[in-house]
């Protein structure tokens, strides 16, 4: 919880204010989505939490039930009737506290439920909005709240022994790759998943290497190094805005034409689709995922790839990039160019199951047992492909699968598609 020391009376008034705020700021689109549900329950059949447990509380639309209740009571067409006759009682602090598990611990914001709804409701969008109200009610999980607060204040989700800027320099030196920081007048501004800085430095080096290969001017900015947005995870809209603005302002400051999102699904959603709304106008630069940027460079002949001699592979489609972002074919284009024998999973592309770690779930300690249970679906699908190497295009997915490897003693090691691209770069033409 945001503040565990708060007394019951203050919590109640905080919840009341948050739910009224939710209802009155809901907007026409979300209200329409809440109005349209016919309680068919089919969204459960898309959700890996329900499929793994068969527990009906994990039905995606049920996760927004108190918010539907608040909307109907406070802002719907017949709100006075619902209030006067007590048909929709006010949402209580206790009720909302129970929903913390449903909205944070057991939802990856993966959006698979939005693909199955026969009415076409984007349930994941509703859940994201419900997270905002949970945050306002003081009910964001402690881990996400603390990281979001730290990130909006300092730029890093957590304090580190050595600032990320110095760690980035160290990675450049370790791999012998130039990783420019705070350059101006560049074509591309880069940022990096904190997961990569902390766990996968080779992926950071790979990003620098492919940029060097492309010969495009680029830079990291020390005031906006981190790609992830913990404000997005925690539901803190103002903090999400502050974290996004940090990147936007730095991209403007260095006159970048492209803000390149590394292998990080949620960073893509936060910056590609949501940042402009928080900024209040269209961004003065393009936001591109690294895979789509590289696929474009490949099509233009700027990226030259040799064959990666690693045999067959399977690939995890990151939900935020593919299902919610439309970056579906770019990674496949790159894999094809490297001559990989891609063995698709049973549910692939936009129907892929989440890695289980998305939406900040991997950061919530108490959610781990349930997360492992849902991950079994995914691991079975990966094993069934018989792909020799398991690739993904999202650092959080990779971290989540690495965790599964330890927990299940799984025999696969998730690898970065970007790192493979960097290893497969063809020699520059001049050297040929």
């Amino acid at each position, binding site marked *: 919880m945001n503040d565990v020391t708060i007394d019951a009376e203050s919590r109640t008034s905080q919840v009341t204010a948050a739910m009224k705020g939710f209802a009155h*700021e*809901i*907007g*026409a*689109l979300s*209200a*329409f*989505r809440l*109005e*349209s549900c*016919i*309680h*068919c*329950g*089919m969204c*459960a*059949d*898309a959700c890996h939490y329900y499929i793994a447990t*068969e527990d*009906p*509380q994990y*039905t995606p*639309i*049920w996760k927004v039930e108190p918010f539907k209740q608040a909307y109907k009571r406070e*802002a*719907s*067409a*017949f709100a006075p009737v619902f209030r006067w006759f007590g048909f929709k009682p006010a949402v209580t602090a206790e009720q909302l506290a129970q929903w913390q598990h449903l909205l944070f611990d057991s939802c990856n914001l993966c959006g698979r439920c*939005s*693909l*199955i709804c*026969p*009415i*076409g*409701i*984007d349930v994941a969008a509703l859940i994201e909005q419900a997270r905002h109200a949970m945050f306002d009610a003081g009910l964001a999980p402690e881990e996400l709240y603390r990281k979001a607060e730290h990130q909006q204040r300092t730029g890093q989700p957590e304090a580190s022994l050595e600032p990320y800027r110095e760690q980035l320099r160290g990675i450049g030196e370790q791999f012998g790759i130039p990783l420019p920081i705070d350059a101006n007048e560049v074509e591309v501004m880069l940022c990096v998943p904190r997961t990569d800085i902390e766990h996968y430095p080779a992926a950071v080096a790979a990003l620098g290497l492919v940029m060097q290969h492309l010969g495009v001017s680029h830079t990291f900015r020390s005031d906006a190094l981190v790609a992830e947005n913990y404000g997005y995870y925690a539901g803190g809209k103002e903090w999400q805005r502050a974290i996004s603005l940090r990147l936007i302002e730095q991209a403007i400051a260095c006159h970048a034409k492209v803000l390149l999102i590394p292998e990080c699904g949620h960073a893509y959603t936060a910056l*590609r*689709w*949501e*940042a*402009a*709304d928080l*900024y*209040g*106008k*269209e*961004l003065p630069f*393009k*936001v591109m995922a690294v895979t789509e940027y590289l696929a474009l460079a490949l099509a233009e002949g700027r990226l030259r790839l040799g064959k990666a001699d690693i045999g067959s592979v399977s690939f995890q489609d990151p939900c935020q990039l*593919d*299902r*919610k*972002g*439309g*970056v*579906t074919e770019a990674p496949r284009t790159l894999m094809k160019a490297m001559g990989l024998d891609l063995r698709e999973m049973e*549910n692939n*592309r*936009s*129907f892929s199951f989440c890695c289980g770690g998305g939406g900040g779930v991997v950061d919530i300690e108490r959610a781990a047992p349930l997360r492992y249970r849902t991950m079994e679906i995914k691991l079975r699908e990966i094993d069934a492909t018989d792909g020799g190497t398991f690739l993904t295009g999202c650092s959080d997915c990779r971290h989540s699968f690495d965790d599964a490897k330890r927990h299940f003693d799984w025999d696969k090691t998730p690898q970065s598609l970007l790192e493979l691209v960097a290893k497969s770069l063809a020699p520059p033409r001049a050297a040929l």
Partner: protein
Amino acid sequence: MSMDWLSFARGPALKVAIGVFFVGVVWRILGFALLRIRREHSRPRSGLLRYVSIGLFATATRSWPHPQFVKRTGAGEALGYSYHMGLFAVILLFGPHVAFLCGLLGIHPWPVLPSSVITGIAVVTATLFAGVLYRRLTSRVMRLLSNFDDYFTWFITMLVMCTGLATSAHLGARYETLLAIHILSVDALLIWFPFGKLMHAFYIMPSRALNGAILARKGAPT
């Protein structure tokens, strides 16, 4: 006395029901449509024409689950569409209904199906509709989601079907009495319509189109 009830049912009661229906439907739609509409500032992946047309296409494609979901939801969807089709056939292709609707709207009647066929369709539809309730009661997910609206809407729709069948079969009372009861049940359904889930009749296609277009704007699947 029964004639009085019949006159009441298709006279003032029907007028009140239609009035509540229209005012209620417009009020409920305005209730959310007049809320704030957020402007999207992100750059779309495709042009307006493309994502609007994909959105419109989604009104059709969402009528059946994607192949990846058919095994889990195909039967439920088939059941849902079956009784809806049965309802539409009974409402729009039964002679007395067509005569009633055309009289009400002042339009020319259209071809209808023989009464015996309609009776058969109505019996099958009512049976399927009973299956819908069975499914709602036996599915743990649907039972959790269900509220008064779900059960009352089912009840009032079934009431209209059963009174209609009884009327056409002259079952249990004089025809005029049965017809009065049937029309009164329709009046009740019209009055309930704007307050409950029957509103999905107005929502389903715009919802599919709107959400389809929003997803297509991102280049995401619909």
